[in-house]
């Protein structure tokens, strides 16, 4: 157990506090994100600890990790059931120029050992994305046959690559161009938050219903992130928005309520990402949340400050 932790690394004291906090909130899943959580010097020990506390653990990783950490992890966790420990691995297209050979080797090394407990994820940040490599990797490494598709959104206060609202239709069309292959390979897709319902045609929704068992969600709400310094924020795109300390709350429900209230206030200012969202019956009935809030908030930051204080950074 390390003597002390720098501020940007989760300490054991804070890990234990969070385990207590989640347990007291009747939450049984412990999700570890980064950066890259496997870079933590005590990563394997901390996963073991959280498992010992009775949580199911999900690690969000790029799959790029030190060989020693990987081999230790395999030795420690190989006999666990998938329900107790799983990985969501965001996999980049290896043919992209930004993917180095060393990175690809590291990811494949990880997938070889942990493939059967990996849910593949893919972040869509351009319209001409390719999923075929992912199908190949699912078969090669025995990954879970469900792809988590994330639509990239603007990160408030930062400059990042994301899908322009005008291109959402193109993205949806591209996803559905893979349906014959998805059906043949018996691979399902799961849509991450922020997809607007209105950009899907009825037959596409029917396909989603049939092949995901009705589990598709067109939501946007707090997916709480807690940093190593115990700062909490509503979700990744809003990582610099309305930060609080977890110590200000007594339970996860309290934190969620705090951010849901802010979400709701912002939705009064602008119902959704499109003008039509304001009058949309599906949004009113909460079938669709009106797309990712980060789009609304990004827009507000460039306006004259006439809205309620909560919407500004």
């Amino acid at each position, binding site marked *: 157990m390390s003597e002390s932790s720098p501020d940007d690394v989760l300490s054991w004291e804070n890990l234990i506090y969070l385990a207590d906090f989640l347990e007291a909130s009747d939450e049984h899943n412990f999700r570890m994100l980064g950066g890259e959580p496997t870079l933590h010097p005590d990563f394997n020990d901390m996963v*073991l600890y959280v498992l010992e506390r009775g949580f199911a653990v999900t690690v969000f990783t790029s799959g790029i990790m030190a060989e020693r950490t990987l081999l230790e992890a395999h030795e420690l966790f190989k006999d666990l059931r998938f329900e107790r420990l799983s990985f969501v691995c965001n996999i980049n297209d290896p043919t992209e120029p930004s993917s180095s050979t060393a990175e690809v080797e590291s990811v494949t090394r990880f997938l070889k050992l942990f493939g059967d407990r990996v849910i593949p994820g893919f972040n869509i940040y351009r319209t001409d994305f390719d999923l075929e490599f992912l199908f190949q990797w699912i078969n090669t490494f025995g990954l879970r046959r469900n792809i988590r598709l994330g639509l990239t959104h603007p990160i408030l206060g930062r400059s990042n690559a994301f899908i322009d609202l005008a291109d959402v239709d193109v993205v949806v069309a591209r996803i559905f161009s893979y349906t014959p292959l998805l059906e043949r390979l018996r691979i399902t897709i799961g849509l991450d938050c922020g997809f607007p319902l209105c950009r899907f045609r009825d037959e596409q929704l029917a396909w989603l219903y049939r092949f995901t068992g009705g589990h598709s969600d067109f939501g946007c709400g707090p997916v709480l992130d807690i940093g190593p310094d115990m700062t909490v924020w509503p979700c990744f795109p809003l990582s610099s928005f309305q930060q609080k300390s977890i110590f200000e709350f007594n339970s996860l429900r309290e934190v969620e309520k705090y951010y849901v209230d802010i979400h709701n206030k912002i939705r009064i200012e602008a119902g959704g990402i499109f003008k039509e969202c304001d009058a949309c019956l599906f949004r009113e009935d909460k079938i669709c949340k009106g797309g990712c809030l980060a789009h609304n908030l990004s827009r507000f930051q460039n306006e004259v400050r006439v809205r309620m204080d909560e919407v500004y950074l």
Partner: protein
Amino acid sequence: MISQFLVCPFDEQLLSALSGRSVVVRIDDIRELSRVEEVLERNRSHLHCLVIESDASVVSLRYQESWSHIPIALFSPELGRFRDLAGQLGVLRKLNLRVYLPSDRAASFASLRVLSSLGIESALVFSKEGLDWERVADLMTYALLGQRPRAGIAPFNYVASRYQHERRTDFGAVYFDDPHTYLHVGAGGCVALSDADLKAGVYLAESVEELNNIENHQKFRAHEGRWREFFLKTDGCAYCPGWRICLGKHADTVERDPGCREFFAEFLDSVEQHQSLTSKGKLVWQP
């Protein structure tokens, strides 16, 4: 007859002299455990607790479920890697064990939380110098006011379970350092009020033969009233808000390191808060 437990080293001749008494036996090698049991059984002595003073980390020792009937106080410099603890947790949870870790190692503060959160009783051993009182206070808050029920961390939970606001509460017994509960016997049979006295050669009696009348001994009675001496100093420990639970344990260092004052005042507040949170409410007459 005396009511105190006798703390002594593992010395077969000495234990024979203490035959029939309740003893606390100190060893430094866990492998001596079964031998201690044999000797005590032969002497018909009662083992109140086995103190293991190990140089090795907690996880490096090999524990056996068959020891579950033996009360063990394990003093160790460190816990060790969690993965090595995880493999032995099942057995450790079944043992009648309290793990003692030193405050002069920063990792101890996290290790004590780990043990406590996993249901293993533990204790912080205060170092004489250079205590990080803020970390001690954080640990105390965790032990007394944390969100989840867990195994106690001494001395915090010890004080919280015994504190009465109209009385002094001495937590020295956590460390076998309270002559009302423990007396220390050296290998040669000398009896002392504390381990420190024993090491310094300050004896209460020269032989175990004198034990039966020990509470009437002048030195013992003098020790009884020693706490009053703190009231003779105008700005001494007795005027500190935390006096009722500290009882001047850090009097030697308070001038150089006054952090103890703030800590013990906060400790007292937390104990009262803990008691109010865990009190069972109004108790009506009982038949």
